[in-house]
């Protein structure tokens, strides 16, 4: 079922934090079933764009549609994968425990995990190749494995749109290669992926489309066109972010 309809639509989306404008009248469409890198320097609005899709960022102007719905009503479809450093990896929880959290939004506060839920959790563990680590406390994992635990939680959620905040941050070369492989597979399966990415070379290698931000939209479309020299110059070399265009893998 490879329709190419637009699964995410932005129309004049503006987000402000006090007097600071984080996103300035963004209008763009994101087609279903493709992987898109969200690019730009620090403070260009990458994370804000992802959060606005989750409906937790009040918009100063404009509108976002997820499929046909307002973001608030599309929540189960949209799976968010935070940066790895936001959680305490010493937390008393196992790999399986984290992946089960993916089912919580559909279960609400009281219902127990049904057999169908367990199947989804098992499926996600299998898909990400961490079924044999399920009983481990999460500190006892490599960086790449920890990233896969987060991805498995998103898969268990059962959504078809995946928002990844700096998924490559802090991964070593092997971990990054693994992640590229996983994301390419997801695209083949028709999943829509939107990821904030710092590293332009990685974005070229791994994503089909790109969105280049500098609080306003610089370019959007196939990744090679978006990352033309002129566009990159515009997004990165104007004022703020002089060194940003290079290959710095680490986050802000």
């Amino acid at each position, binding site marked *: 079922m490879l329709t190419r309809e637009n699964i995410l639509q932005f129309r004049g989306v503006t987000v402000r934090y006090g007097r600071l404008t984080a996103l300035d009248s963004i209008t763009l469409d994101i087609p279903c079933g493709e992987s898109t890198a969200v690019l730009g320097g620090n403070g260009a609005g990458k994370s804000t764009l992802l959060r606005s899709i*989750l409906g*937790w960022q009040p918009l100063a102007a404009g509108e976002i549609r997820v499929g046909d719905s307002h973001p608030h009503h599309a*929540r189960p479809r*949209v799976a*968010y994968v*935070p940066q*790895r450093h*936001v*959680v*305490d*990896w010493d*937390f*008393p*929880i*196992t790999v399986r*425990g*984290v992946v089960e*959290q993916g089912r*919580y*939004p559909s*279960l609400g*506060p*009281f219902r127990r995990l049904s057999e169908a839920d367990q199947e989804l959790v098992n499926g996600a563990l299998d898909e990400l190749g961490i079924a044999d680590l399920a009983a481990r*406390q999460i*500190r*006892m*994992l*490599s*960086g790449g494995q*920890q990233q896969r635990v987060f991805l498995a*939680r998103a898969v268990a*959620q059962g959504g078809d749109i995946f928002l990844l905040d700096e998924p490559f941050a*802090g991964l070593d070369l092997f971990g990054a290669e693994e992640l590229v492989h996983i994301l390419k597979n997801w695209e083949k399966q028709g999943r829509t992926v939107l990821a904030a990415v710092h590293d332009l070379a990685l974005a070229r290698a791994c994503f089909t489309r790109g969105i280049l931000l500098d609080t306003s939209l610089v370019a959007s479309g196939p990744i090679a066109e978006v990352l033309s020299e002129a566009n990159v110059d515009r997004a990165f070399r104007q004022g703020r972010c002089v060194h940003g265009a290079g290959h710095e893998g680490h986050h802000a």
Partner: protein
Amino acid sequence: MSLHDFIIVPFSYEFMRRGLVSAMFLGVSGGLLGCILVLRRMALMGDALSHSLLPGIAVAWLLFGTSTTALFFGGLVAGLLTAIGSALLSRLTRVKEDAAFGSLFVLFFGAGVALISKLPTRVNLADFLFGNVLGVSPSDMRLAMVVSIGTAAVFVLFHRSILLETFDPVFHRATGGKGGLVHMSFLTLTVLNLVAAMQTMGVVLALGLFLLPAVSAYLWCDRFRSMLLLSVGIALAGSVSGILLSFHAGLASGASIVLCLGAVFLGSVVLSPKYGAVTALRRGLAPRRHP
């Protein structure tokens, strides 16, 4: 001394039974809340919060005498003022939240000590600071029971929200969770429990009943639920043995409960097979694997 003399006789006294019941109920809620304090790295903040209750309690005492309700609301107001005041201070000035909390709590604590030393009553400062099981009135005991049952109910009902907000607040929010609400309820529950624990534990030592069981359980458990249960278990055992110790050794009840819990904590630090100090030394101080 026979076992009967040691364990049963103390509780033939009415005040001892009240002290025991209060301490055990507070052990349940304290053990639960302590886990969140430990996991969210709010242990020191909780300590500051408990100190800051003192002036509220003192003012309530001045105005309304020994009424449990008045003391309760006095402590509550002082605790919330500290929490909200430091949040405001850190947002309005360049002072960071830990410094704001630290400054406000010593200020409050100092004011509390000054007030109580001038109070025209027979009650001495030490009882406020370190607890006195003799002072647990029937209404204090009822307060402890209500607060404890309420806290436990919140944990049972909102188990998932609490877990998500503690482990990964960003994901919690992304899935429609109300993080701010969970946080505020948590702070309120903490203040309620601290106030309820004041008679038995004293404001300086109350946090021990929360923190020590949780941090001990943290050294043994790899699952959130088992950490909560073990923490409650340790808190219960510590309350019972602490109350007994206090009776037989003639110690302040808060101090003896903290001492019993402290023994469990030190034992866990040394002996925990996975996260204990002995294991770490045996591994040649090899650092844990970091991502």
